């Protein structure tokens, strides 16, 4: 897209998004937050930030879950506002972002249904960005083909479902495979869509999505050790749009223990750094946190370019990270477990 005409359709929303981004908590805010003694202190401090009075109508004493819900509500409201004002192709782009949440919701509901939990109890746990009309009818399905034919065929996820239609009954492993296959198809489709948009959007988004794909590949591999998942099946789950594709993925498919995974990462400068500093010992950061940190960095970098859609994605992800941080700090305060309170991931 031509940069010079970008502002005709998306200038307002980009400005809005950048404005929202400026409201993201700074390091000084976090330093204040970790000093809080109670959740009410936390509320008081958040009042002086861009969050404003979002907790003002909640009765004391506060629950962490209430904070979590309110944080999410605020983010969702902002996102919905942008989605409602978006025109094509930004509309499709924003819709694409929500598909990821749909996948998570579906998996959550199916798993819940497997454990005989009523849908009404599960619904509040679903991410509001990933709801769709038919979602509550999901427990009609007992096999994946039924799931597809009855529920998903009308949703945007139908395109991603092609590979996992089978007559097998749904069980834990199956669901996990469905989730990852869906996610793989989703990521690849999103990646190609961004590429087709071209320009700065492609430049920024492909970088972020490639990292997302590689992170999934690493995590799938690490989590598969010690399960019944065969190497061959595992290979089918790797999203093929990252930097690991094709050599790295092939090597990952052969990996048998975490050491092998690390060796694969050695060949890629950015991933080597992540694996090197990671560990589970106290004082060290977990690999997951390292990945999150890298993601934050990529997302912050997205704001250095102008006239592209990446800012919307990056904003959502940064804000999500911020919500996770606040909830983490809130949990630490609520459980009087201050030793690990500093393990949040600051957003630069």
């Amino acid at each position, binding site marked *: 897209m031509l940069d010079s005409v970008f502002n005709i359709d998306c200038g307002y929303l980009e400005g809005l998004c950048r404005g929202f981004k400026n409201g993201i908590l700074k390091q000084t805010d976090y330093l204040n937050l970790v*000093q809080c*003694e109670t959740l009410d202190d936390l509320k*008081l401090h958040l009042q002086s930030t861009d969050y404003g009075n979002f907790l003002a109508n909640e009765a004391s004493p506060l629950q962490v879950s209430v904070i979590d819900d309110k944080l999410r509500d605020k983010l969702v409201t902002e996102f919905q506002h942008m989605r409602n004002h978006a025109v094509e192709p930004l509309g499709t782009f924003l819709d694409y972002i929500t598909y990821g949440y749909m996948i998570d919701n579906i998996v959550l509901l199916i798993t819940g249904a497997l454990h005989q939990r009523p849908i009404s109890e599960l619904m509040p746990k679903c991410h509001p960005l990933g709801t769709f009309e*038919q979602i509550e009818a999901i427990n009609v399905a007992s096999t994946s083909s039924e799931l597809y034919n009855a529920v998903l065929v009308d949703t945007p996820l139908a395109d991603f479902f092609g590979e996992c239609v089978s007559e097998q009954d749904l069980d834990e492993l199956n669901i996990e495979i469905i989730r990852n296959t869906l996610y793989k198809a989703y990521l690849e489709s999103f990646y190609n869509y961004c590429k087709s948009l071209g320009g700065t959007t492609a430049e920024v988004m492909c970088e972020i999505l490639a990292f997302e794909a590689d992170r999934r590949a690493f995590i799938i591999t690490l989590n598969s050790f010690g399960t019944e998942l065969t190497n061959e099946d595992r290979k089918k789950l790797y999203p093929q749009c990252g930097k690991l594709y094709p050599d790295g993925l092939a090597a990952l498919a052969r990996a048998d223990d975490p050491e092998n995974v690390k060796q694969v990462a050695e060949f890629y400068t950015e991933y080597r750094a992540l694996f090197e500093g990671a560990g589970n010992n106290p004082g060290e950061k977990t690999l997951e946190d390292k990945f999150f940190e890298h993601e934050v960095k990529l997302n912050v970098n997205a704001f250095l370019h102008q006239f592209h859609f990446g800012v919307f994605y990056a904003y959502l992800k940064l804000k999500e990270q911020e919500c996770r941080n606040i909830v983490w700090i809130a949990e630490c305060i609520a459980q009087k477990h201050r030793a690990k309170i500093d393990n949040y991931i600051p957003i630069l």
Partner: protein
Amino acid sequence: MGSIFRSEEMTLCQLFLSSEAAYNCVSELGEIGLVQFRDLNPDVNAFQRKFVHEVRRCDEMERKLRYLETEMKKDNVPILDNGENPEAPQPREMIDLEATFEKLENEMKEVNSNAETLKKNSLELMELKHVLLTTQLFFDERDSEPGTSITQNLLPAEEGKGPVQLGFAAGVTLRERMPMFERMLWRVCRGNVFVRRADIQQPLEDPITGEEVFKTVFIIFFQGEQLKTKVKKICEGCRATMYPCPEAGAERKEMAQGVKGRLDDLSTVLSQTTDHRRRVLAAAAKHLRTWFIKVRKIKAIYHTLNMLNLDVTNKCLIAECWIPTSDLGVIRDALRKGTERSGSSVEPILNRMQTQLKPPTFHRTNKFTSGFQNLIDAYGVATYREVNPALYTTTTFPFLFAVMFGDAGHGVLMLAFAAWMVIREKALIAAKMSGEIWNIFFGGRYIILLMSCFSIYTGIIYNDVFSKSFNIFGSAWRINSNATVENLEHWEELTLDPANREEYSGKPYPFGFDPMWQIAVNKIAFQNSYKMKISIIIGVIHMIFGVVVSLYNHTFFRNYISLVFEFIPQMIFLIGMFGWLCIMVFIKWIMYGAGPEFGEERSSFCAPSVLITFINMVLLKKEKEDPTTPCKVFMFEGQYILQLVLLVLCIICVPLMLFPKPLILKSLHNSKKRHHEQQAIAQNGELGGEATTSGHGEEEEEFEFSEVFIEQAIHTIEFVLGSVSHTASYLRLWALSLAHAQLSEVLWNMVMKIGLSQSFYTGSIMLYLIFAAWAALTISILVLMEGLSAFLHTLRLHWVEFQSKFYKGEGYAFTPLTFKHIVSGDEDDA
């Protein structure tokens, strides 16, 4: 001197409040609203301050009140607003308030949850009623067609199995979910179910959100147990509620009867609940506003207390605050009152402090001046004790506006609007109209009032009323006394020549323009010449006045260097160049003219161009006399020499503005430094190693010569070039006034004239319509848009051309602790 001329004198005071009296004292101070507290713990987190607990309790109370308020708004219970101003309650009363709110909230919640369950029940019953009704209809339809029973097999029954019984389920779902529901049924059951639907016509109330929703009754026929479970699951998934529906007609009827009875019972209970709810809310609504004010006052007081320092002994709180010096007495009284109320025996101590801190700027305004003060503050809050341009703006602003907006008719329209706002002031304030645009107009009502009065005045001078003129005193022109239709046609080309004494009586129209000009071809040429000159004269006077005001600043701040090396050269420069230009205009007006009373040398033909003369003066060009005409280049003897002297004076002024001031400042600084050093040496000699602390807080400002010099250079260049460009800038007075007059003339000629020049009686109807168009355009374009544009240009002339001569605007506004906005109900409290 009132503080409209200069901002109020402020003192920094230290206030020692005993801890028991602090609350009441601060409360009293908040009521008078004249004290600005300084935050003495800026590095302490909001949640680590002393009274954070109380602030939080207030937040909690506010939350409860807000909850009650939303409930009241839901039920449209009017909230009583009698404008009373309750005092901030004592801290011990807080517990009572808390208990009251707690009780109310709980009661409300209970009533609400009761109402919700009742409503839910009634909704279910309603739905059931509809289900029964529609199924009844449906089955009736079936029974009326004997032989084609829906439960009858289409295929002949297989041997030994008997007829297959079809099961059915009935329920209700949201209308918009219906298509999705049907589609899913079709997919999951592979077309093996039969669905009938009927929309419920009247909307039902959702028990949780209270919104009205439309629903649809459906009935599904299926065969077999497996399909039954599937159908059930889908119904669940689509949030459809299923209702038991007996198959036999008699049972259905019986059930419908039962449902009806239960519904009646329920509705009586429900109405009682709503009545109770309304009663509770109405009782609370009487006090809600006072409660809000009380809670907010407590909160504001504790916020302020959080800014204070705690004494080491914990016995007293120390505050630092800015106070208008003239109000010290009032504040002492308030403190005494506060102490009495708290019953403390320790008098609070108020100490005046010496300080180097820059005090805040406080202008006492009333409803008339506040509008003008806002215009000035929008540019920048005045430096402490600087001359406040708002005082002069009260007259110059409407005047300059009126020069551009000179039309008595439009002025009257504006006056009507402004007068309405001013007369109905109290009622309008009480009505608390929201809307940003309205608030802007209402806030500036006095500005608009003055602007409209001045517009009427200039409109009469321009003799412009909706682009037409009044002939009040009788025109001085008499054109072709034997007027015929042909003559009138010919008048289109009418040119007025004052030299022609057959047409012009020689005695000018007593006030303003002669109405005859309105129809003359050379009207524009005549008016332009006049308006251009007038704009320059007004502009130069305005600017010279600005420089004179700077004299007051220099003398007040004892800045004698600036007085001698800025004010005097500036004055000479401005008067020598542009003042002279204006004087030339007057000379030309007086000495030259058309008609027999002026000689050949002084005829309008010989009148020199002021502009060319002025340009030649600066370029040192001396034009040759033309021997063929009797005209002279100069207006009087010795004009050339005078101009030369003025020019030389002006040129000398430029280095005078540029060099001396920074040089003097430098030498002053150097001598001061030397003096300090000598003192220090002397002290060291006397007292040994004791360090000097004499200049406490007197931080020596870094003196950087280059910086000062560059600043001075910029100021000089700005002034010299600025005086040229600013003078030219005042020409906008002419330009806008011309544009306004032309626009209204065009509107009259293109619109109104069409209606007026109809010769048939149908024209009267047309005129009726055309007048509407003309009136709408007049108000929207000429009054609103043109008024806004003239307003903005006036604002610019004040901000840039006038205030640049003396106004620094580097201060910060005085923001005292005050309960005013709490009482008036503005939301944006601290």
